[in-house]
């Protein structure tokens, strides 16, 4: 009992530390995004927020899992400068996205394009969900449906007084049946 309580306590401490670290790292990455001030943006009258709004929709093609607005690489800074330049030229975020896709490939979009093997990544979760849901539904339906008298062999028991096979329809009946059977077995 004492050991159990100390394990529980350590688990709680671990969870608190983990939550703190997660919040801290999230806020750190948010801060980075806010600090990112492209030099070209200032000269073109485009604000850093406008640049970051576009950049946050794109992913650094040189990193893995880093958004362009939070990336500290020199290449990313140059990419943000390019976004600022294009915004100043009057391009909208959609055409900038298209340009980035054309230049650097689908990895800047952060999601696999719908082609070839990638379809599996899009479909598989839903297929698994459907199959899992079907089995769950089927199993639950079988669990709640009343057991037919002919098939209920494993649950059916013998009533000691009447020597007849009874099929329990309610939990109370089932319990009574089991009790009777076990009482009989142990004398």
């Amino acid at each position: 009992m004492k050991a159990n309580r100390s394990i529980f306590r350590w688990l709680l401490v671990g969870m608190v530390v983990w939550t703190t670290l997660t919040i801290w790292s999230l806020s750190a990455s948010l801060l980075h995004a806010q600090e990112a001030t492209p030099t070209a943006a200032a000269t073109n009258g485009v604000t850093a927020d406008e640049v970051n709004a576009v950049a946050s929709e794109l992913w650094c093609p040189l990193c893995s899992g880093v958004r362009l607005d939070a990336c500290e690489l020199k290449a990313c800074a140059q990419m943000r400068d390019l976004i600022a330049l294009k915004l100043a030229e009057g391009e909208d975020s959609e055409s900038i996205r298209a340009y980035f896709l054309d230049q650097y490939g689908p990895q800047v979009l952060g999601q696999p394009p719908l082609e070839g093997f990638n379809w599996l990544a899009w479909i598989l979760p839903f297929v698994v969900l459907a199959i899992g849901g079907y089995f769950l539904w089927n199993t639950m339906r079988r669990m709640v449906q009343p057991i037919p008298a002919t098939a209920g062999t494993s649950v059916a028991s013998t009533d000691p007084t009447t020597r007849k096979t009874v099929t329990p329809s309610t939990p109370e009946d089932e319990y009574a049946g089991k009790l009777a059977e076990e009482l009989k077995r142990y004398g």
Partner: protein
Amino acid sequence: MAELTEQTMQAPPEPAIADQVVDPAQQRAVNAWRFVLIGVPLLFLVFLAMRLYQTNTSEQRAAGEAPPFVFTSFDGETISLAELRGKGVVLNFWASWCDPCRAEAELLEATWRREQDKGIVFIGLDYLDQEPAAKAYLAEYAISYANGPDLQSGAARRYGIKGVPETFFIDPEGKIAHMVIGPIVNEAQFAKALDKIRP
């Protein structure tokens, strides 16, 4: 065991027989669950192994026959490797944000100026770069050989580069004769590599 025999003896005959007959619906359910629990993870593992194998082979640096590529230079000229048969090709992957690339930029341009009349072609493919910065880089080092963006890193993937700079020396028969990973540091190293691809 004794209990069990007692139980079977006391149980009425009908349920005992029914116990041994397997319900087909139940058997179907068991089979389906067996497929889900064993088949699906197995299928997943097979797919994973397949993909890992593919990734592994595609991540090797190119060797032997030089993978073909076509690119449009910053000047608007379309260049295909296939059309350069009979010439030695120096294919350099670079980027304006790459500091080690700057270390070899001057040597590359100087060597190109010396070798361009001797059947050697220099090509610069700009890897994951930004056009304004790339053009500024080319102007800074007065680079005059053909340079253009490697769109969607198509050539970079085919050549299996791990970073920039990387330089491939392709002989007149279109075979990769030599490669330098990282910047080319001196003329002697460059000359030795060029000797392998002279027509």
